[in-house]
């Protein structure tokens, strides 16, 4: 029936299927990407065929300028992300454990939530110039709320019994925080961080597409300005892969570091 419900007997056959079909899926997409432009189904000047894009990607990866820009982007991103964690996680946990903190900060979150933070970049540029400060700030603003909210969910959802056990064992407030609250909140916090990565990378690229001073977004936009379609697609693909790799790396890292976590991040 092909339904999710029925389990297929015969484990051997099933394992091959689990590898074969994903490959078939990718192959299909690549096939369409390759043939549609060549057949003229889409304008090859707008979407170059896959092989051409891959070839160009190799060229770009050999461009030292690309690596330079990537390095400056990465630096900004790391700083911004770390700051967001340093601010968001403690606040979120405080909100989860303290009524006062919750009521003080939640209104702030609900008001600022609907604003697309990346839109504020231009205002920040007016305030702080087009340098790193404004760009790092945007990255921080972009992912601060999801990280904070996840930390809040993690900290507020702790089983009371865990905390009672800590009390019974005579753990003081600080110890309880470190030994019980932090680990118990970890799954949610990690989920929030994972989303934060995606959002912050978005904010980074978006800000660099807007203020085209340096960075990988600026690098991309230059090609657009020049009308170099092939390079635009190639760079965009590289950025996409970087985004994917960052995410995979994060998942792998958390799995290795926190093997005791049940389930998945």
């Amino acid at each position, binding site marked *: 029936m092909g339904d999710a419900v029925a389990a297929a007997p015969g484990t051997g056959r099933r394992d091959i299927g689990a590898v074969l079909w994903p490959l078939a899926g990718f192959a299909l997409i690549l096939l369409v990407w390759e043939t549609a432009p060549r057949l003229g189904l889409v304008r090859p000047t707008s979407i170059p065929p896959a092989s051409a894009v891959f070839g160009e990607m190799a060229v770009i990866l050999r461009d030292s300028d690309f690596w330079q820009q990537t390095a400056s982007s990465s630096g900004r991103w790391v700083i911004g992300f770390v700051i967001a964690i340093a601010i968001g996680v403690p606040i979120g946990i405080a909100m989860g454990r303290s009524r006062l903190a919750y009521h003080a900060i939640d209104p702030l979150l609900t008001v600022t939530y609907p604003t*697309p933070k990346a839109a504020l970049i231009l205002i920040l540029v007016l305030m702080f110039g087009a340098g790193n400060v404004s760009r790092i700030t945007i990255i921080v603003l972009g992912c601060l709320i999801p990280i904070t909210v996840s930390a809040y969910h993690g900290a507020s959802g702790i089983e009371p019994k865990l905390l009672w056990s800590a009390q019974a064992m005579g753990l003081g407030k600080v110890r309880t925080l470190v030994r019980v609250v932090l680990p118990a909140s970890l799954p949610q916090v990690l989920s929030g961080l994972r989303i934060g990565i995606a959002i912050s990378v978005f904010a980074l690229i978006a800000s660099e597409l807007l203020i085209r001073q340096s960075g990988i977004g600026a690098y991309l936009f230059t090609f657009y300005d020049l009308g170099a379609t092939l390079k635009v697609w190639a760079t965009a693909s590289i950025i996409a892969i970087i985004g994917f790799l960052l995410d995979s790396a994060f998942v792998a890292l958390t799995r290795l570091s926190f093997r005791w976590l049940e389930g998945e991040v």
Partner: protein
Amino acid sequence: MASVQATPTAEVPPPQAPPSPITPRRNTGPRKLLTGLGWIAIRLYPVVVIIGLWQALVSLGLVSPFTMPAPARVWDVAVAQLRDGTLQRTTWTTLSRIIVAWSLAVVVGVVVGILIGRVQTFRRMFRPIVAFFFPTPKVAIYPALVILFGLGAASKIALGFAEAVFPILLATSAAASQIDSRLLWTADNFETPRLRKMSTVVLPAALPGVMTGARIGLVGAIIGVFMGELIVGSDGLGHTMAAAYRRLQTGDMYVAVAVVSLIGFTLDRLFLAARRRLLRWSPEVDH
């Protein structure tokens, strides 16, 4: 509240949905005593505080009135724009694009999500692809989209669609794959044909999850359209902001931000109201 769990058995399990923003749903004692107007007051209080802080910053001279004009000044600019109709026009331009992008994302996201959630072959073929694209910054593809679709609405809608479709798709496939078997068996018991089972059983059963994804998708659509207009555009709120930036008219910039935030807030509220109605049968949805 969206619980953040990963969908099972993928090499890189994509997150199901980002945690929803905190809405004050906790039954604190004082809240229970409030009625109608009082409730609105509570909701507006944070906005009042923000504006108050804003005004304080300006009055105290902590920020230059150029980079952060006083609230009153921004209000004046907004009113002027309303008077000559530009605000309505640009707002509608952006809003219509958002609605189109989101609607497309819902249709595609739900259909593909149900297929991925319930048909094993489909899931094996396409879930890895979805998992690949989910964490990528879709905005990186925006210049390519402009080359493809031109400077007009299509590229903005495409970016909004790209940002919105993934959370919807993932939430739908997760919900569709976790339906209680006995509900489906009941439909099978009655010999329900497969297609009708999809529309009369799978879809309603998955609806709570779908709605969570759709809510997040709404945010994505707004961000996608607005950023698209901002980066390369000729009309809409994003473009207004970019143009104002180039002319160093900060008042207009703040108006644009305020309006898009308002759009975000309003659409979210409308969505929640629709969700309450559509999910009135669900025990978990608060009413």
